[in-house]
């Protein structure tokens, strides 16, 4: 029998609000342990939760970016379970009345066509504390860091619309791009600000049976999401073929061994409406105001880039994928630089350098003004392409002015015909055999000689002038 996978994802995203969800403590889980705590997030007797308006707005922006309908009324429930990472004995989460429902994202399917994947709902909840269990030594010790307790999360629950690891990976990427655009969340799987839980079940192809699902956790990169799902599909297929029943349970992805392994069953507690957090009632006026803060999203921006700047579809998509880069692109183009050439330089030169440094453009010394000046120098043939690449790296890493970098690095392009003539003559004199070879009708040697001449100029020669001179001298 042939099986088909049915995949649903539950994704937790940390909102980058300044404070925790129900108190004024800084939302900085990474600080020294138990630095960011107060009576509310430690849940001292008599404390009451105060919902952060900023977190609510950021959550709503995220929901709008994922095309969800914000519910007129949503409310918090107590998800009850007893564990030292939960100061209240329950987690405040929106179980019965989530913030938003019915969203979607579009992905590019394996056939290249657009595929719409649906979101069942998005709810807000508070994160739990961090536990360290030290089991070595005579007495086991458990340490609790409450910095993370109460920090704001949204959980995005997909419909079981996905069938392949590809679908799941593209879904996570699309969702991440949309959320990052809103500025509400960093969405890094690596740093745990976006956490993916996958529910995977198999069913005979062509049926609509709902089979037992297995939950897989602990994938800390997009690739791990794909690999873990692929592994789990094979594992379950083998189980079914051997006639072993699939039991409902949770497995952890082990990125070292590249397998999933069962984890200790986590207790699922009940959800009781919370009497202390007032229901969230969203008015049209408020929602319109928040909607107004939603930036132009990538799909629309991409279309505008094609229309306004004449970019090709793939160029426009690349220039609009990340919000900061798209704003950088526009800011450069507004300084009277040719859009397509700018886009090309950003995509082929700047992006790889940023990736190497694992930084966003805002985290470097490069500004649109500096980048525009560099492209201007290239256009005016003050520097050549090769030098420009090198200079770009320095513009990213040091605050030095462009002029200074060019001067200090001796990057100024040699265009002076007199100087270059001397240089060309020296190169030709050093390679008599190659010169003879060229003159006897082998044009390929020109490339070699050109390379030697460029090298002799330490990469600074104006290639156009150099090439003309070579041709003239050899001719």
């Amino acid at each position, binding site marked *: 029998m042939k099986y088909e996978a049915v995949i649903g994802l539950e994704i937790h995203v940390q909102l980058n609000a300044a404070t925790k969800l129900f108190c004024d403590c800084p939302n900085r889980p990474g600080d020294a342990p138990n630095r960011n705590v107060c009576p509310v997030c430690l*849940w*001292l007797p*008599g404390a009451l939760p105060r919902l952060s308006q900023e977190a609510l707005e950021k959550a709503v922006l995220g929901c709008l970016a994922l095309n969800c309908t914000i519910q007129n009324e949503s409310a918090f429930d107590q998800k*009850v379970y007893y564990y030292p990472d939960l100061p209240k004995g329950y987690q405040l989460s929106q179980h019965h009345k989530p913030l938003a429902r019915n969203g979607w994202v579009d992905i590019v399917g394996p056939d290249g066509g657009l595929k719409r994947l649906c979101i069942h709902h998005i709810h807000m909840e508070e994160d739990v504390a961090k536990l360290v269990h030290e089991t070595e030594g005579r007495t086991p010790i458990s340490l609790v860091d409450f910095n993370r307790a109460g920090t704001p999360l949204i959980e995005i629950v997909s419909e079981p619309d996905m069938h392949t690891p590809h679908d799941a990976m593209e879904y996570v990427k699309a969702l991440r791009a949309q959320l990052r655009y809103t500025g509400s969340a960093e969405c890094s799987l690596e740093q745990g600000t976006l956490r993916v839980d996958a529910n995977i079940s198999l069913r005979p192809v062509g049926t609509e049976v709902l089979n037992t699902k297995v939950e897989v956790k602990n994938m800390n990169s997009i690739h791990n999401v794909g690999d873990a799902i692929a592994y789990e599909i094979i594992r379950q297929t083998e189980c079914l073929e051997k006639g072993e029943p699939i039991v409902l349970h949770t497995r952890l992805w082990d990125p070292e061994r590249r397998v999933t392994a069962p984890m200790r069953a986590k207790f699922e507690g009940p959800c*009781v409406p919370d*009497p202390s957090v*007032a229901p969230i009632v969203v008015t049209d006026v408020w929602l319109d105001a928040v909607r107004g803060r939603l930036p132009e999203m990538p799909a629309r921006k991409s279309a505008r880039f094609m229309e306004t700047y004449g970019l090709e579809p793939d160029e426009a998509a690349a220039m609009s994928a990340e919000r900061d880069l798209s704003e950088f692109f526009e800011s450069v183009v507004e300084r009277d630089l040719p859009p397509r050439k700018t886009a090309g330089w950003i995509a082929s030169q700047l992006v790889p350098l940023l990736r190497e440094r694992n930084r966003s453009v805002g985290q470097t010394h490069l500004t649109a003004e500096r980048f525009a000046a560099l492209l201007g120098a290239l256009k005016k043939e003050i520097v050549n392409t090769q030098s420009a690449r090198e200079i770009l790296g320095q513009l990213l890493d040091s605050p030095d002015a462009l002029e200074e970098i060019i001067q200090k690095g001796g990057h100024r392009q040699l265009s002076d015909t007199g100087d270059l003539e001397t240089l060309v003559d020296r190169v030709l004199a050093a390679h008599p055999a190659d010169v003879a070879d060229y003159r006897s009708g082998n044009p390929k040697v020109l490339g070699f000689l050109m390379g030697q001449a460029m090298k002799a100029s330490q990469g600074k020669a104006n290639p156009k002038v150099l090439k003309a001179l070579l041709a003239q001298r050899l001719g």
Partner: protein
Amino acid sequence: MPEVFTYRNDSPSRITPEGTLAGLRVAVQPNLAVRGWPCDAGSRALSGYTALQDATVIARLVRAGAVLSGSSRMAELGFGLTGDTSARTVVDGHADVALITDTMGEVRLAAAGAGLFGLKPTYGLVSRHGLAGLVPSMESIGLAGADPGRIAETLAVMAGADPDDPSMPDDCTAGFSAVPPSGTGSLTAGVIEENLTRLDPEERLVFDVGVARLEAAGVAIQTVNLADYGLFQDVHHLIAAVEASSSAGKFDGVRYGHRSAVGKNWNDMYLNTRAESFGSLIKPFLFQGAYFQFERYAAFENACRLRGRLVRAVDDLLGQVDLIVLPTRRPASDPKRAATIQATYAAFALTLPASVTGHPALQVPNPGLAAAQDTGLQLIGRRLDDGRLLAIGQHLSFAAREGR
């Protein structure tokens, strides 16, 4: 007899000696946070816990010139009145007003047992910030005292919007004025027929005396019907137990309070701590709540639906009459001696309705009767009608003094 106070304030601060409550002595229960005072809510779960900041109501009272005389004894986590000494702080002359958290009728029953007035304010009128409570959707910081006028003045200081308690309903944020909205004349009070039929002849007799006092004060009496009257107890019991179970979830010994000395690992520590933390009355109540949370959630949802129906039914009645009258207590069951959940609910049977619906309720003593005989008169008013109830109480009090 045990000491009335668990903590006595020997150096009362007088920040505002000329405030509206200048010189008023207020006693609290140890579930209300007063900075630096023990705050154990009568439970081993919080043994050794000291409040870090003042509850909102405490800060407001002190700012208005009130003097905090001390902290009384209370039933564990405020469930019932077993071992409670809060009303005695007033009777023995240590305080003018005692703050008693009312979850199922505690302030009203404590007052009734001591011949005092006892007000459970409209739910949400008074901030719960700093109250180590048990049943968040029902509890209200109540006031007991001999003088309804002083209760009104004290409530006026305590009531009103508090940014630290965003759960307060919008209609309560305007606060409360010690001056009642209108006079007491031409009022009608409803006597619930379904309640009357549950009273034994002696209770009926005492109740009729109280109703006659109301009538003599010019209030028209009318018999009304509340078909669902029998539901209050089960609805209260189920919802209160579930909320109590949630509220007590924080007592795990991780951050404060009692922590068991035995245990191989965190899980053992957790289980032993919780096992050792609670007494014999509250523990089964928490178990019952957990049972409904985990095993019978549909029953809990049903109770919430019925609660909504009861609120509407009482609101409807209060559309026909200005207030509802019930006795406050049943002499046969002493809430201070209740050792089981069943006995506790039996003792509080008459005060549960206003706890379930959130309406304000005032216990009025009958000075013509011996304290053991007096079952008290309980006036239930419309939301935010606390001032009017107290004005009626004041009126009855004057009338009694003048021997009418």
